[in-house]
């Protein structure tokens, strides 16, 4: 690397010259034959620390300083742990309002470890010998004699086992070894129930009220304004319920109100109530709750993979990786004027699966 100013008398001039002559002894001859021949390892050059004891001392002090710093940091770590409350928030530019404890512990731990490493590496780089050495490599593959011996041993062993001769033993053994892993596979059976038609049904059924997710109250048509977005769950499903997560994963509903004349799809209009349409909130691609509703375009976008559906046109897919439209829930109004479902979804909600059809 870079060379440094060193007093002349400290340089091992003669020795270096000797080595040079030695190392390059027969190179000039080689050069005549092949200009690109390997000149061999260049002679070793000394570092300042190798020849100047003062520099070596400096390095020693640096290493010791780093190790000492590490000790101090560890003390600092313990002190921070004991003294700083876990909920103390401090402002540190440019990090922001952060946890004082996390910052103090991390910095002291980091410094304690980093200094050990830096000390060791500085020690290795400046004080340990940096003379390059050579190891010979040996072929990985075995010598032919070794290989012949191994093959002979194997043949002998195979012969003694009589595996080739006693076919009955061999075949039954293979049979046994092939069959027993089946037990392991059978044991996995109770990991879960069979799908049956569970993916086809949700909690929605005829007469179930549409309950507003925010207020936990049943919705009336007048609550839902044109251009608004509302999320609903089936009546009777509460957050505290044991099966809430699994049920809401299928039953979550997205309700918007369009001008009836804007609805292009005939079935959508039939299944709506005064322009209020209810669609599954679960994307038909891989099941993200889709609800990025643009009230001017009536498009709804999935934030996970950007499938885009047109809510004014039967929620058909207009962009992205989803394979089919969002399922619509047929709704109406009951005697008391609340929005209610006219049945379950007619097709499975959520991602496609093999048996979906």
């Amino acid at each position, binding site marked *: 690397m870079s060379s440094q100013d060193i007093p002349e008398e400290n340089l091992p001039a003669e020795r270096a010259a000797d080595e040079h002559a030695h190392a390059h002894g027969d190179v000039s001859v080689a050069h005549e034959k092949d*200009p*690109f021949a*390997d*000149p061999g*390892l*260049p002679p070793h050059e000394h570092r300042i620390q190798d020849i100047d004891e003062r520099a070596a001392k400096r390095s020693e002090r640096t290493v010791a300083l780093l190790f000492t710093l590490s000790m101090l940091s560890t003390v600092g770590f313990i002190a921070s742990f004991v003294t700083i409350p*876990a909920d103390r928030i401090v402002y540190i530019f440019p*990090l922001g309002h952060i946890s004082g*404890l996390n*910052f103090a*512990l*991390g*910095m002291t*731990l*980091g410094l*304690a*470890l*980093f*200094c*050990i*490493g830096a000390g*060791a*590496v500085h020690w*290795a780089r400046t004080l*340990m010998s*940096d003379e*390059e*050495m*050579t*190891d*010979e490599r040996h072929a990985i593959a075995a010598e032919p004699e070794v290989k012949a011996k191994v093959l002979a041993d194997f043949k002998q062993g195979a012969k003694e086992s009589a595996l080739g001769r006693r076919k009955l033993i061999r075949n039954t053994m293979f049979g046994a070894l092939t069959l027993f892993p089946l037990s392991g596979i059978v044991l996995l059976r109770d*990991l*879960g*129930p*069979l*799908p049956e038609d569970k993916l086809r049904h949700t909690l929605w059924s005829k007469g179930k009220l549409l309950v507003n*997710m925010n207020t936990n109250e049943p919705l009336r048509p007048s609550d839902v304004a044109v251009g608004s977005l509302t999320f609903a*769950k089936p009546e009777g499903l509460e957050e505290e319920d*044991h099966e809430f*997560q*699994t049920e809401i*994963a299928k039953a979550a509903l997205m309700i918007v109100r369009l001008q009836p004349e804007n609805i292009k799809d005939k079935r959508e209009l039939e299944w709506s109530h005064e322009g209020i349409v209810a669609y599954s909130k679960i994307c038909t*691609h*891989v*099941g*993200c*709750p889709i609800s990025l509703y643009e009230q001017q375009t009536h498009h709804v976008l999935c*934030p*996970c*993979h*950007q499938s885009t559906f047109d809510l004014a046109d039967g929620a058909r897919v207009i*962009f992205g*990786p989803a*394979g*089919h439209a969002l399922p619509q829930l047929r709704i109406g109004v009951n005697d008391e004027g609340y929005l209610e479902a006219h049945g379950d979804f007619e097709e499975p909600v*959520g*991602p496609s*699966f*093999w048996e979906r*059809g």
Partner: protein
Amino acid sequence: MSTTTTPNPSGAGAPGRSREKAPAGEKIADWADGRLGIYSLAKANMRKIFPDHWSFMLGEICLYSFLIIILTGVYLTLFFHPSMNEIEYHGSYVPLQGQLMSEAFASTLDISFDVRGGLLIRQIHHWAALVFLAAMFVHMMRVFFTGAFRKPREVNWLFGFLLFVLGMFTGFTGYSLPDDLLSGTGVRFMEGAVLAVPVVGTYLSFFLFGGEFPGGDFVARFYSVHILLLPGIMLGLVVAHLILVFYHKHTQFAGPGKTNNNVVGMPLLPVYMAKAGGFFFLVFGFIAVLAAVASINPIWALGPYRPDQVSTGAQPDWYMGFSEGLIRVMPGWEINFWGHTLALGVFIPLMIFPLVLVAIAVYPFIEAWVTGDQREHHILDRPRNAPTRTGFGVAWITLYMVLLVGGGNDLWATHFHLSINTITWFVRVAFFVAPVLAFIVTKRICLGLQRRDKDKVLHGRESGIIKRLPHGEFVEVHEPLSQEAMHTLTAHEQYQPAEIGPTVDENGVERKVKGPQKLRAKLSTAYYGEDGQIPKPTAEEYKEITSGHGHH
């Protein structure tokens, strides 16, 4: 092992000391040797030589971040509750108080806010995981571009590749454990992907989740996979990987004194003991500082998982980003037939995902087949001297990057004021076009660099000194290279394209040339024909130029 260029210092452990006064350390070593044979082991390894190059330390970054992950991970298991039971939160974090959440999420909040230092360990664990995967990626690319995967290291290449893939899944199962709104969305995506598998998908999904999604089982199941199954396999692979590194001895770049039959560098004891040991502390310290200054996966800001809630910007950790890109840009194809649904829009990306990874994994075997080379290689290639390989590698990275762009298309859209639809279309086209362009451009650059090397060897280095000749012509003085430099620049081997040979034998009977053979000859020509490499300078060329007309 001939490590005898320096006289052995007559320090401790050297034979010749009087038997009755053996120091305690030696006694212990003797005891161990009698039972474990440590002296024979140490003879081969204590002064083992390792070459010095920064890029050879990338693997060490992987190893050390892996160790850090294990250490911090064990700590986290002491406080984490892998349970999906819903509870009401009453911990220190105010904006979630009174909310329903799984125990897994609540215990992660406790680790972050109520266990002193818990947040630091969590952040070290997660940052180390990101760095681990990134370092494996770069390490793998270093090995790829220098051709270090060639015989005898193909098996170790595969071990490394497996570690990368397993690392991805360990990461995925790990960040899904807190059961937060972001990772839950990722798990939901996984469920959707499993459902898309033809015939058995629905069953697989039900077995994986113990019924319908999300059910109450997956956190506990992911937990055992994340802390036991995958890390156990990885630990075994890491050990095997390291044993092979020791056994094969490290590769080295060409240079004076460095041959295919030796390894030049510093001994394990003491230099690498200190450097590698010290580097562990450097990596650990560095990541600890990272965890002190930068927040990662702030689950308290994301909230507990609810299958009916979602946030925009839902992305996986970076190493899963390319699969996110695949799934985002795929058109929504779906086929319905005989009462069945084939969700190609999900299933095709699910199949391309492993193919992208396998493409890089099998490359060494394809190259070995094309070259037909059976020898061991311990001298590394400079990437420019293997233009086709380098081109393929850059094309692969380009594909990977294009998919990462696709995976983050929403953030590209908001930060560069672009349309998300345009970016998606760009990625759809670039998926096919960009790798091809990258391959062509890279190969050309490599060939240009080869030409420059050749010029340098034959004509010397441009000195920047302009000389006026007696007849008025201006020339730049070229300094001849040192022999070390000339050797280094000409040390690489160049293959000749394989030939099929005559298709008609001496009796005039047509010989059948099999398809694979033809393909191999074609590939070989592409690799090593006129367009594949610049013939390196020969001694004759050099002598003619230097003896005849002098430098110009």
